[in-house]
């Protein structure tokens, strides 16, 4: 090799330029969280205290049932907007026997959430997540977020915005077909 130092310098320069191009191409790319990895994965285990004074709700006790987990709170407007859909969906399916609905309070005081539930006479289970452990385990970034869990414990539907009855029926159909 006649000029090894020159070739190395060229290689260094080329690497430097490639690296600069790589970084420059990412300048306007704003990282954003596109959703967790829960879809098609086992639901995280949880054991949460009831909001309304009933027994604790444990994920293990829900095995064998289709479960809709809904993260919500009393002050979020989309949560209030989806409430009618949740109520209608629950009224349609609560007698199915193999179906449960669990509302997990996220980023709210227990007293405010409890007042909301009592005012709306909701019949499904409501629990608090005092340390936010379950909300982190689900990878939540806000509320409302809904997770449909099939009877085999696999998450088959995730929605990170207010749900409609149609959304819930579609997720339920997937849950029932995958069991």
């Amino acid at each position: 090799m006649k000029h090894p130092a020159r070739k190395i310098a060229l290689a260094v320069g080329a690497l430097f330029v490639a690296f600069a191009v790589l970084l420059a191409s990412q300048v306007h790319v704003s990282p954003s969280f596109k959703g967790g990895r829960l879809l098609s994965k086992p639901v995280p285990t949880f054991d949460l205290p009831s909001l309304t004074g009933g027994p604790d709700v444990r994920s293990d006790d829900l095995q064998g049932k289709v479960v809709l987990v809904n993260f919500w709170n009393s002050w979020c407007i989309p949560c209030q907007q989806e409430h009618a859909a949740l109520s209608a969906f629950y009224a349609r399916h609560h007698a199915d026997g193999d179906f449960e609905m669990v509302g997990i309070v996220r980023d709210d005081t227990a007293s405010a959430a409890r007042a909301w539930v009592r005012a709306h006479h909701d019949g499904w289970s409501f629990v608090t997540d005092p340390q936010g452990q379950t909300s982190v385990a689900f990878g939540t970034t806000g509320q409302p977020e809904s997770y449909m869990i099939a009877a085999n414990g696999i998450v088959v539907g995730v929605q990170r915005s207010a749900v409609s009855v149609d959304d819930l029926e579609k997720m339920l159909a997937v849950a029932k077909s995958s069991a």
Partner: protein
Amino acid sequence: MSPRVRVWLPWAFLGVVLAVVLVVVVVSSQPSNSPTARANRLAHELRCPTCESEAVANSQAPAAVAIRVEIKRRIAAGESDAEIRAAVVKSYTQYVLLLPDGHGIGMIVWGAPIAVLLLGAGGLAIALRRWSQQPRLAATAADEELVARARSEE
């Protein structure tokens, strides 16, 4: 003292000084392993999932607060930093890591500067060796004659 020893002694001394400095720097920069220090370090390594490129440590967003609480809970439960990192990544994907890991594009981000450094050092070493092998400037007979003539004319 032999000339050989006289040449190598300063280099040996320099090597010892560098080794001592290196040891002092490495020892003094060992991170604290107290639970608080670990929690703080991890919170700085993780991205708040609902913020714009902000560490969990610096955000008051509910998700960041919940992750900080989760980090402390897992430390208290005896989990290692790697286990805690893996648990948060399981919930929020690799996106949550502010420091790139050693896979995919992260490998390029970590590897490219090291490759450039190694190649640069190699190139410098080769260049220095070549320069040292080049004959030093020496006066030719014509130069000597020129100087002698200039002196005789003074």
